[in-house]
């Protein structure tokens, strides 16, 4: 009797092991195949993109027809970098541009720094309440720079601050920017191009985000590009290059772009208002807004396009401690899950076109199933190997393939960056990035997966807070 039970248990373990390994392999292979497809599509798309025009030519070509844009930058406890980033926004080369900084109830001296450095005076600017947000305490206008508006409001989170900005801005387009980011002078002139070519259909455009740690910053501008000296920001540089030059470009090319980073994205104000603005009940408000825009336009059968442009560069300060990075990644994971489950009815639903049939299954694979399956694989494969339930030759070969595939995709993104954008300053920086590509597979990726699992757990516990983001400010960059 006991013998039979033992045999059954061993059989069950054996079958389970086969299933688990099978699942890990299927998910892993599918993710790799998708990455390969993305690399090919992105390469094709980047070949077609135009040569970077010089600043003067760009201005001559685009300025006459460029529609007004309001830049909205929510700021919460951004005292360290707010002055530099505001200067950066004010120095943008664009014909009609106003800058709205939304102080979202900061506990530090963010507002005072703005008042002191930009000679702010209380303003009575009127606006219409279209998207809901927490009460505004005061609106300020700069005496020095008439295009600078500062909104001081009660704390309500990033989405809430952006909604306040949407209400107060008066331009047909608004650009959401993180207050800890710096835009390149021509970023808006580059990014506005899709709105010029197809003003009736384009409703949102995303741009490329780069890691600013290691760059030399003066007067809110990156004056000399450099790679981060610390390992953690350097590994994030590898990640950002891969994400923005491969994944987003490819998804945009295929018409399934569901993510425009909150750090830099231009939106049609009427289109954002039509879907009710940002959702304040999620920490992934940027992803959620884009998904809602897709959903609304698909349901109403309104022709639209949401695209990304590889060139416009927004520099952001990447977390350089594990504690802060883990918070950011957990939050990203939570945001992805919240958005996915909020729009789950689109999954596999042909009514939602490519978004339902391609983008949502992709999200299921990468955001929903990806982290648990990868962690499960990492945990179970050695156990099964030791217990003899797994063929060691296959396990080793599969691990090698996974590692090499990751390196191959990253090398591809580096090649795209080198050929089309050329933003890595020196050959030795290139070598350091290559080093990063190799070592990210040993510890960093696994850590990321653990944080994502924690994000899953926080999602299940319905955690809503953002967590503190500690900034050192651009002044302390190299």
């Amino acid at each position: 009797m006991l013998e039979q039970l033992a045999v059954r248990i061993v059989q069950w373990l054996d079958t389970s092991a086969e299933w688990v390994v099978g699942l890990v392999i299927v998910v892993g292979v599918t993710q790799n195949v998708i990455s390969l497809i993305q690399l090919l599509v992105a390469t094709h798309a980047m070949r077609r993109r135009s040569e970077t025009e010089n600043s003067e030519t760009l201005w001559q070509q685009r300025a006459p027809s460029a529609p007004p844009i309001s830049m909205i930058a929510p700021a919460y406890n951004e005292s360290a970098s707010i002055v530099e980033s505001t200067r950066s926004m004010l120095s943008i080369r664009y014909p009609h541009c106003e800058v709205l900084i939304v102080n979202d109830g900061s506990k530090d001296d963010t507002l005072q720094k703005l008042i002191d450095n930009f000679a702010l005076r209380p303003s009575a600017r009127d606006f219409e309440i279209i998207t809901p947000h927490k009460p505004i305490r005061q609106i300020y206008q700069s005496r020095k720079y008439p295009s600078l508006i500062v909104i001081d409001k009660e704390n309500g989170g990033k989405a809430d601050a952006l909604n306040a900005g949407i209400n107060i801005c008066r331009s047909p387009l608004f650009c959401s920017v993180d207050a800890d980011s710096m835009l390149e002078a021509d970023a808006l002139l580059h990014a506005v191009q899709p709105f010029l070519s197809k003003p009736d259909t384009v409703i949102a455009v995303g741009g490329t985000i780069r890691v600013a740690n290691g760059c030399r910053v003066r007067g809110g501008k990156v004056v000399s590009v450099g790679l981060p000296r610390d390992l953690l920001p350097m590994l994030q540089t590898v990640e950002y290059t891969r994400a923005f030059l491969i994944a987003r470009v490819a998804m945009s090319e295929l018409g399934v772009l569901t993510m425009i980073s909150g750090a830099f994205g231009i939106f049609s104000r009427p289109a954002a208002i039509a879907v009710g603005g940002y959702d304040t009940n999620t920490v992934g408000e940027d992803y959620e807004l884009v998904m809602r825009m897709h959903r609304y336009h698909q349901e109403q059968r309104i022709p639209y396009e949401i695209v990304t442009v590889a060139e416009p560069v927004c520099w952001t300060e990447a977390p350089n401690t594990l504690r802060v990075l883990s918070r950011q990644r957990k939050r990203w994971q939570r945001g992805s899950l919240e958005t996915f489950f909020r729009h789950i009815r689109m999954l596999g639903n042909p009514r939602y076109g490519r978004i339902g049939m391609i983008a949502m299954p992709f999200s299921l694979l990468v955001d929903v199933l990806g982290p648990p399956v990868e962690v499960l694989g990492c945990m179970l494969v050695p156990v099964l190997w030791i217990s003899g339930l797994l063929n060691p030759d296959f396990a080793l070969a599969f691990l090698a393939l996974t590692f090499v595939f990751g390196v191959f995709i990253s090398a591809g993104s580096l090649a795209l960056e080198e050929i089309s954008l050329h933003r890595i300053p020196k050959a030795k920086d290139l070598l350091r990035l290559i080093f990063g590509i190799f070592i990210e597979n040993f510890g960093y990726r696994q850590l990321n997966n653990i944080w994502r699992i924690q994000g899953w757990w926080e999602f299940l516990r319905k955690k809503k807070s953002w967590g503190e983001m500690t900034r050192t400010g651009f002044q302390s960059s190299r």
Partner: protein
Amino acid sequence: MNLLQFIWWTSLVLALSSLMVMVVLVLRRMRDERRARQEQHVRSVIQKILFNYMDSDWMSGQKDLNNLMNMNRAAQHVLRKLTIDLCHLIQGQERQQLTSLLTRSGFRNECVRDLRSRIVEDRRSAASALQLFSDTTTEQALLAALDDDDGHVRLAAASSLKMINALPDLRILISKLEEKDVLASRDVRTLFRDMARRKPLALRQLAADSGNDTQLKIVLADAMSETSDFRVLEDLYRFASDDDLDVRTTALRSLGALQHPDASAVVEHSLSDAQWQVRAVAAGAAGQIGLEYLVPQLTRLLDDDSWWVRFRSAEALSDLGATGQQALRERAATINSVNDNAGGRMAALVLDEHGLHELVPFADADQAASVSQGPIHA
């Protein structure tokens, strides 16, 4: 080959490919760095010769020209880039000198050849670069590019043809742009605005033939804002009463920009349009034109249901000098509490925004919390 071998071979191929890509990238970058250093030196030398050439008389200019033409291939590339940059900055005789230099360096022929490239972006940038040359060969090549498979190449060719004053008949141009569905592009508006300055009559003829083509009417109505020929007013009046909302608002925007007082009747009529967008633009136009007699209507619109109509009306009143501002002050003076009428609040806020009357925001927290409703003490 079994599955295990296949996995290992795949890994090996991927590893070798990655390694090769990385080595090539690093070597390429090292070469580029060396080239960039050389280029910087060459650039300063060329810049000197180029400025000499532009300043010099014919004889010594020929010497500079020969110096430039005898440079090696890499230097020719630098010369070309520098010359194109300069061409965008200068006009007249000096620009002609530079373009002849570009022609001699083979750049024009290269662009003409690129117009037949399989890559759309190459064709578009070639069409755009050809605006630097105004000879027959360029003209013919650009005219042919108006039949390109891609709409944006056609548009770039049209822009270049406009720059060299060689645009074909506008009806033909319109049909070629419509064929590729690029009439909605903002670049088309820029193109037509420029034409409105040069050929207002041609635009009028197109307007007469526009029929039910909404997109064309929008382009024409928009372009007419740039003309100095006030005969276009008649067309704009017609567009201002079009069935299409966008045509009406575009026409009214242009009427505002032209600031001709004859447009008063049309603007006045549009102030009571059923669509709020039209009322808002009409209010703006009234302010731009300076139609003081419309102050009572604009004051009434301060109580419109639409925030934009209220805002544009208040702005228009503030633009209408003493009479308009007085009307705003009177309305602003009628508000006493945070929940007062929207029109009065708007009047007070616009006065403050324009620096015409300093307002004191509520100080205590309860009132401040409701600033988001727009309450401000006058």
